[in-house]
């Protein structure tokens, strides 16, 4: 056990470096990172270019969109430990709000955005309040059902296009000098990146405060958390609703870029893939989740030259990776192992209840 604790760990090293850095270094590092990501569409490197599809488009969807949704789902699955298999439903609600209001009213993207987020949140409350009382695996099946219901309802209601979906969704109006057109995915990517940064900021603030501590407690032991006075249902619903809001915002933006949506884009596979991003990257750790989502969204595009078996390769890679690193690529809180006196409950043998 002892040698394991002191094994060099890049993530912990980086985190220590960050924490020991003075403020000016942190600020300048953050700014250069952010600037790098804003400049990413201009990067032209044969290593990361995606054959068969435009790198700038890939950067918006799937990569950026998956990163955004994985951050949102991480609030639900990673922080509060609720297994949600129907996350795509909120994405669909956002996208359909944009599609319906954009084609039937004169509202523009920036006016529809808060409506889409609000509707996703309301559906999160409606779904969450009754079902979040259920235990893990039952919650999984109920959310899975909800995801499918939203899709089936969209397929079967002719008023919103039925299986053909909605076409002719307006693009957002020009913002500063950026023009939103179908040909140029860069402005969409920048908007998406701004959303993502805002959400990262929000999630990090929350995680350090009362909601974050409540989520931690709920994840570790629901009953104990309740016993200690945490209003578990309230914080569970909050986690659910915040996750829904993120997906709703993503959906609105996605619909305005893709211009036409069909219900089958919002199938169970998307929910599962986003969940895979969260677990693959390192559940509960924000940076791990972002890395995982970027990798999982980017790899199938990068290996598009394999055309037929690329999803097969993806599936096999998922199994192999999970077997090699069951905690994900960048697992969280390995750093505590650096303290030579620190022991987990299992190691010390104390507090063993079984």
């Amino acid at each position: 056990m002892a040698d394991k604790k002191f094994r060099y760990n890049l993530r912990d090293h980086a985190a220590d470096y960050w924490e020991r850095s003075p403020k000016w270094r942190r600020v300048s590092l953050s700014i250069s990172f952010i600037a790098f990501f804003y400049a990413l569409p201009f990067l032209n490197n044969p290593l990361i270019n995606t054959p068969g599809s435009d790198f700038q488009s890939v950067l918006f969807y799937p990569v950026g969109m998956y990163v955004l949704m994985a951050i949102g789902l991480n609030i639900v699955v990673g922080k509060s430990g609720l297994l949600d298999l129907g996350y795509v439903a909120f994405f669909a609600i956002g996208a359909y709000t944009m599609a319906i209001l954009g084609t039937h009213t004169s509202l523009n993207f920036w006016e529809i955005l808060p409506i889409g987020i609000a509707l996703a949140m309301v559906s999160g409350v409606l779904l969450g309040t009754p079902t979040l009382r259920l235990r893990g695996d039952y919650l999984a099946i109920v959310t899975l059902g909800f995801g499918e219901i939203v899709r089936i309802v969209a397929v079967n209601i002719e008023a919103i296009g039925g299986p053909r979906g909605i076409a002719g969704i307006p693009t957002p109006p020009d913002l500063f000098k950026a023009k939103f057109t179908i040909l140029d995915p860069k402005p969409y990517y920048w908007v998406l990146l701004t959303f993502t940064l805002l959400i990262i900021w929000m999630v990090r603030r929350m995680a350090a405060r009362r909601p974050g501590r409540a989520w931690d407690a709920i994840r570790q032991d629901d009953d104990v958390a309740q016993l200690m006075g945490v209003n578990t249902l309230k914080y569970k619903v909050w986690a659910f609703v915040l996750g829904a809001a993120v997906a709703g915002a993503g959906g609105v933006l996605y619909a305005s870029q893709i211009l036409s949506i069909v219900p089958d884009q919002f199938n169970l596979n998307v929910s599962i893939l986003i969940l895979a991003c969260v677990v693959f990257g390192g559940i509960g750790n924000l940076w791990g989740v972002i890395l995982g989502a970027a990798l999982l969204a980017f790899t199938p595009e990068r290996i598009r030259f394999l055309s037929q078996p690329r999803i097969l390769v993806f599936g096999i890679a998922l199994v192999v990776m999970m077997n090699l690193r069951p905690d994900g690529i960048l697992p969280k809180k390995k750093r505590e192992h650096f303290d030579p006196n620190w022991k987990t409950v299992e190691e010390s043998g104390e507090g063993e209840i079984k």
Partner: protein
Amino acid sequence: MDFALLRDAFWGLTFDGLALGAIYALISLGYTLVYGVLRLINFAHSEVFMIGTFSALVASGIMGVKIEDDPRTGWGMVFTLLICLIAAMLASGITAVLVEIIAYRRLRQRGATKLATLISAIGVSISLVELFRIITDSLPREFPRIMDKTFLFSYAGADIRNDKVIVIIAAGLMMFALERFITKSRYGKGIRAVSMDESTSTLMGVNINKVITVTFLAGGMMAGAAAFFYILVYENTSFKVGFFLGISAFTAAVLGGIGNLKGALFGGFVLGILETYTSAVFGTAWKAVISFLILVLVLLIKPTGLFGESIQQARV
């Protein structure tokens, strides 16, 4: 909304629902067995079913049955059907065991989280679906008609078709065999012991790896039998077949109380009948919505399913 159809064809629909429910019940037994032992949703179980349907197809091809042939008769027919059934059960059983070894074993022994195991199983599921998509070129396959489908008799306006009668009876026999296996056999005892308390049963000398392998084998064979019955009645399959039936069967398992064998049976039949009724009344497109709404309602009133989880009692 077509309540007249439901009223006029009530017994016919009930009978069709029973046949569909028997298939659901057989698949959901696999979910419930694995959940009972490992406390995990076996996400690759729907693909175990899918492989069963294709194995039955291949077996019928090896037996020389062709789509354009007339249905067989007499003992030749029985023999062909049995070969297809055994092929499906063997293939599904072996696949389920392989899934356990590839996706679960290593993670389980390292004490990985539930979610990591879930993703690993999802990876296996994606790989198998994609493998069969590539093999079959994304096209559905038709199953040749081995058995002549005739109406045996009529009851209250409902024509009872022979293949569905066979499915219901055979599924009942399968479930009876499984129940005997779980209650009477040595491994069945092991399965029950592990599902009650894993660490204590290990201390009592239960070989946990063997027990888990047997659990997956039994669940897989039930799914294989379900696959054969499915292909016998509906006469087609595709790489997507596992997805739809898997979700329904899993819903059935939860409806009855997951981890509970009787619950899985009951949930399967209830869901099969309900789906048949609701597709008659609201159209097939809405049946999944209605079954999920029913599931949510049941869970809200009784959060552990209709029969409860029965963790402490013998899971039979």
